[in-house]
């Protein structure tokens, strides 16, 4: 584990380099141990792919021996040891997300099909036939970065990002896929759209998904999409 400062506000622990379930499992166990410690002055714990970033309030830790940064590093080293006995809930929650593929819902599906030299139907069956893992939540509130895209669907990001992608859009960016919970700019190839709300600021938790959750996509018809809405 490598510890580095993120300015004067956080400490980043790097636990690996790749995007793989084993590294994510260690990252989530470590984040869990940090959360359980309920340490004073810690404001946010952010796991993502191969790292955990711990945000702290330096004013609350100014009296700590060696200063705030050193005290957060010590906490992280202690929790890293404790986390070795945890074998967390990686992949125990499976969320099925209905997607209306193609047409106006997924305007880039033909670009993906052409790039991958397969049919539009194959794009749908490959995308909805795979198991995905949430590696991180970010970009916009509730946006899940999903690993597990079949290599046959790997597609480049758009050269010029769209200034507005509708909320619910399902996209492919290189070897990742994800869902835009709300309208935002976006550079991924959009292949479909879900009526499911992935971010609900009035609920707790607001984000439907968290790192470690599994996701499956299920094709739905435009009629069902409109009914659901």
């Amino acid at each position: 584990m490598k510890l580095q400062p993120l300015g004067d506000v956080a400490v980043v622990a790097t636990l690996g380099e790749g995007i793989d379930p084993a590294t994510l499992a260690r990252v989530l166990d470590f984040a869990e141990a940090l959360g359980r410690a309920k340490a004073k002055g810690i404001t946010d714990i952010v796991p993502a792919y191969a790292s955990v970033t711990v945000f702290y309030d330096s004013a609350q830790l100014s009296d700590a021996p060696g200063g705030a940064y050193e005290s957060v590093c010590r906490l992280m080293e202690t929790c890293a040891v404790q986390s070795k006995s945890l074998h967390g809930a990686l992949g125990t929650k499976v969320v099925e997300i209905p997607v209306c593929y193609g047409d106006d819902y997924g305007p880039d599906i033909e670009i993906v099909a052409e790039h991958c030299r397969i049919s539009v139907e194959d794009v749908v069956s490959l995308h909805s036939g795979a198991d995905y893992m949430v590696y991180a939540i970010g970009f916009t509130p509730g946006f899940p970065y999903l690993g597990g895209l079949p290599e046959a669907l790997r597609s480049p990001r758009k050269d010029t990002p769209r200034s507005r992608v509708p909320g619910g859009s399902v996209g492919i960016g290189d070897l990742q896929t994800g869902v835009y919970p709300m309208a935002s700019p976006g550079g991924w190839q959009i292949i479909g759209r879900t009526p499911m709300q992935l971010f609900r600021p009035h609920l707790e938790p607001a984000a439907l998904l968290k790192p470690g959750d599994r996701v499956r996509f299920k094709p739905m018809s435009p009629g069902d999409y409109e009914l659901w809405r």
Partner: protein
Amino acid sequence: MEIKVIHAGMQTTVQDLGRRGHLAQGVPIGGAVDPVALRLANLLVGNAEGLPALEITLTAPELEFEKDAWVAVCGARFEGVPPWRPFRVFEGDRLKFGNRVQGCRAYLSICGGFDVEPLMGGRGTFLPAAFGGFEGRALRDGDVIRSVPSERVLSGRWSIDERVLPHYSREPLVSVIPGSQAAEFGDALYSERFTVTARSNRMGIRLEGPPIARTAGGELVSTAVAPGTVQVPPDGNPIVLMADAQTLGGYPRIAHVVSADIPLLAQLAPGDGVRFKKTSVSEAHALARAEERRLALLRQGLAEKIRSA
């Protein structure tokens, strides 16, 4: 009481000191881009320092007040509006701002604070996801926003000692802590002057200068970023992330602006310049403590003024 928005200005939003504890769900910290100016504006009208105030960007609104009220405007300076002191507006008054003299963002506080519902632990507006603050959006002409009634009696015959104000400048020298990928870049960040471009917003300040070349390193796996993080995308023009920064980033981080200097960046308008110098984490924390001591002194002084008014 009601405050009528006659003209909204370029981008006027309700902001506070942001949201904590939701970064893991992708919710940015948000809040005032210049948190010190917001805190001072609140303190000047006797409010708790984190109450929601209006963040005014580059062009100011015109507001009509239903009743007498004490207000204060801190941060960017506008002609015709007394800076860094409380002043009284009377029933039916229209508060008009003149031309912008200095800075980019002003904070207008009102005695009692603006009346908006908290959401996820904050009352600030997060524009990209359209939630929080006043209907999740910037104010528009014709809106009516409410303030919480307050009977507090103030006096306006004084202003803040300039020495406690941030050292705003149109070309500040900003302290940064080297970032995770600092070694993959030369020393260009510390030798050049960078210009603020018009593509800057609450999410980030986009700078332009001699492009910064990355001499090593490949694609990065995304990790957390925060307000202050300086990223260098492939075009070599650095971006300093600000209050509404997305929570994860995949561009290399060359540096991170210390918390105490965030207000200096928050007040840079397009065309202004900035230079950077290196510091350490412990020095940054010392700067933050010094800032808090200055604010504590001011809080104490103000409490006495307000009591004796």
